[in-house]
C-alpha cells in the first residue's frame, strides 16, 4: 500500500534547521492496522503530515499503490485515497458539522448520520452545529474521526483519536476503528494508549525522528512496556498500575 524510502524532513527556522525525521524506511501493507507511537516530539504527526502531503520531505521517496507520489500535493493524494484525522482538528466559522461530512463523503446523497452515531454523537443534536469554538475538545475530536469514517479512504491515519475522549467511550472508539477497517485498506493509528496499542497488528516506535522499533505487537509491546514503566509507582497509593499512561 505505502512505502517510505529514505525519508528525511527538515524544518528551517530563522537561524537554524531542525531535523525532524531521518532515514525513515517503512512499508505499510494492505489489511494491517499499525500503531505509531513514541515520545512527544518524536515526529509522529510530522510523519503523518508528510504522508498526507502537508509537509514535503527534504529527501526520499513516497510510493503509494505502486506509484511515486512524492511530488503530489494534498488534494491529489486525498483523491487517490489517503486520509488523515488531525491531532488538532481545524475549526471553521461558517461550516456546520453536516457540511464537513458532506464534503468528506464521495456520494453526498448517502446519509451522514451513521458516522456521528458511530462516534457517540446524536445526529439530531450535532448535524447543524457550527464547526467552531462552541464545540468542546472531545466533541471536535469525535467529529474529526467521524469525518474520516465518512471519507473512508484506502489509507487512513488517525492522529491520537482517543485524545480528549472520555474513558466511557474508549471501548466504542476502538471497536469502531476495528469495524471500519476494510481488508483492502491500511490503518495507521498514532497513539500512546495501551488499549489502542493492544488492538493493532504491528507497532512502530519512533524516537527522535527515527524508527527505533517495528514489528508485530506481541513482540514489540513487551519491549516498549518495559521502557515506559511508571517511575512514580513507588509512592503511588494505587500501586497496581505501572505504566506511564496511568489515567490517575
Amino acid at each position: 500500500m505505502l512505502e517510505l524510502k529514505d525519508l528525511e524532513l527538515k524544518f528551517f527556522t530563522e537561524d537554524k534547521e531542525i531535523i525532524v525525521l531521518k532515514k525513515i524506511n517503512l512499508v505499510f501493507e494492505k489489511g494491517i492496522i499499525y500503531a505509531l507511537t513514541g515520545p512527544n516530539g518524536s515526529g509522529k504527526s510530522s510523519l503523518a503530515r508528510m504522508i498526507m502531503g502537508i509537509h514535503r520531505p527534504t529527501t526520499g521517496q513516497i510510493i503509494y499503490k505502486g506509484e511515486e507520489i512524492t511530488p503530489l500535493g494534498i488534494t491529489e493524494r486525498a483523491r487517490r485515497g489517503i486520509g488523515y484525522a488531525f491531532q488538532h482538528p481545524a475549526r471553521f466559522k461558517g461550516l456546520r458539522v453536516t457540511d464537513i461530512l458532506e464534503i468528506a463523503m464521495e456520494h453526498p446523497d448517502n446519509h451522514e448520520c451513521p458516522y456521528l452515531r458511530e462516534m457517540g454523537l446524536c445526529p439530531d443534536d450535532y448535524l447543524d452545529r457550527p464547526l467552531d469554538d462552541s464545540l468542546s475538545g472531545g466533541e471536535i475530536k469525535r467529529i474529526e474521526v467521524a469525518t474520516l469514517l465518512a471519507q473512508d479512504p484506502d489509507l487512513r491515519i488517525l492522529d491520537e483519536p482517543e485524545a480528549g475522549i472520555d474513558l466511557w467511550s474508549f471501548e466504542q472508539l476502538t471497536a469502531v476503528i476495528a469495524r471500519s477497517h476494510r481488508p483492502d485498506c491500511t490503518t495507521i493509528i498514532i497513539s500512546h494508549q495501551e488499549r489502542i496499542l493492544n488492538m493493532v497488528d504491528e507497532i512502530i516506535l519512533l524516537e527522535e525522528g527515527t524508527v527505533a522499533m517495528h514489528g508485530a505487537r506481541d513482540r514489540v509491546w513487551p519491549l516498549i512496556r518495559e521502557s515506559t514503566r511508571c517511575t512514580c509507582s513507588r509512592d503511588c497509593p494505587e500501586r497496581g498500575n505501572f505504566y506511564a499512561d496511568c489515567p490517575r
Partner: protein
Amino acid sequence: MLTALDKAMLEQVADLKGIPAGAYNIRKDGRGIERRSAPGIEIRPKKDQPGIDVIVEPGIEGTVHIPVIITATGLSDKVYNTIEIGSSADILLIAGCGIHNPGHAEARHDGIHEIAVRRGATLRYQEKHYGEGEGEGRRILNPETILLVEEDAYAELELIQIRGVDDTIRNTKARVEAGGRLAMFERLLTDGGQKARSDVVVELIGSESTARIVSRSVAQGSSKQIFQPRLIAQGRGRGHIECDSIIMDQAVVRSVPEIWAESAEAELVHEATIGRIAGEQLIKLMTLGLSEEEAEERIISGFLK
C-alpha cells in the same frame, strides 16, 4: 410589465419568482411600477416626495416585498420610504436593490427607510444588494435605515451585499426602547476596486433592551471596507458587536467598533477580527479532496452564509 431582465433581478434581490403573494411595491428606474396592498397592510405612494408609506395595522401577520431595480445607465434615484409596523404585528419585509447598469454612466440608488416597530411587534427585515451590467458604468448604492424598536418589540435586520456593487455607504441608526431587542446581521463581499463603508449607531435607551450586531465580510482584490458600529447604552442595556473579516489579495479592511456606556448597569462587548483564511482550514478541506480554490470558495461561502 416586467421584462425577463426585471424578473431575473427581482429574483436576485428579493427571491421573487413572478408577482408575490401579499402586499408588494416594485420600483423600477425611479418609478413605482406595480403595487398591491393587502388586508391590514396598506402601501401608498408619498405625495410630497418619491417613495412609499407602508402601514401595517396592529396584530397583522404577513410578508411585504418592496424591491427596487435599476436597469438604465446614468440614472440617479433617491427614495424615501416610511414603514410602520403596528403593535403586536409580525412582518417579514423584503427590501433589496438590484442595479443592472448596461452603459458607461453611473447608476445610483439612495434608499432612505424610516421604520417604526411598535410595541410588542416583530419585524424581520431583509435587504439584499446586487449589481451587474456589461458597461463600465459604476453601480452605487447608499442605503440609510432609521429604525425605532419600541417597548418589547423585536427587529431583525439582515443586510447582504455580495459582489457587483462598486461603491456603497450604508448608514444604519437604531433606537431600542425598554425590553426591545435588535439583531443585525451584515454580510459583505467586495472585490476588484470596490469600496464599502458601513456606519451603525445603536442606542439602547430603555432598560432591559438588547442589541446584537454581527458583521462578516470578505475583502478581495484591491477593494476597501470600513466598519464603524457604535453601541450606546443609556441604562440597563446589553449589547454585543462582532466584526469578523477575511482579508485577501491587496484588500484593505478597517474595523472600528465602539461601545459606550452611560450607566453602570450596562453590559457591552465588542469583538473584531481581521485575518486571512486560516491555513489549517484550507488544508483540512484539501485532505478531503477539494482543490485549494474549491476549499477557499467553500470557506468564504460558508462564512458569508
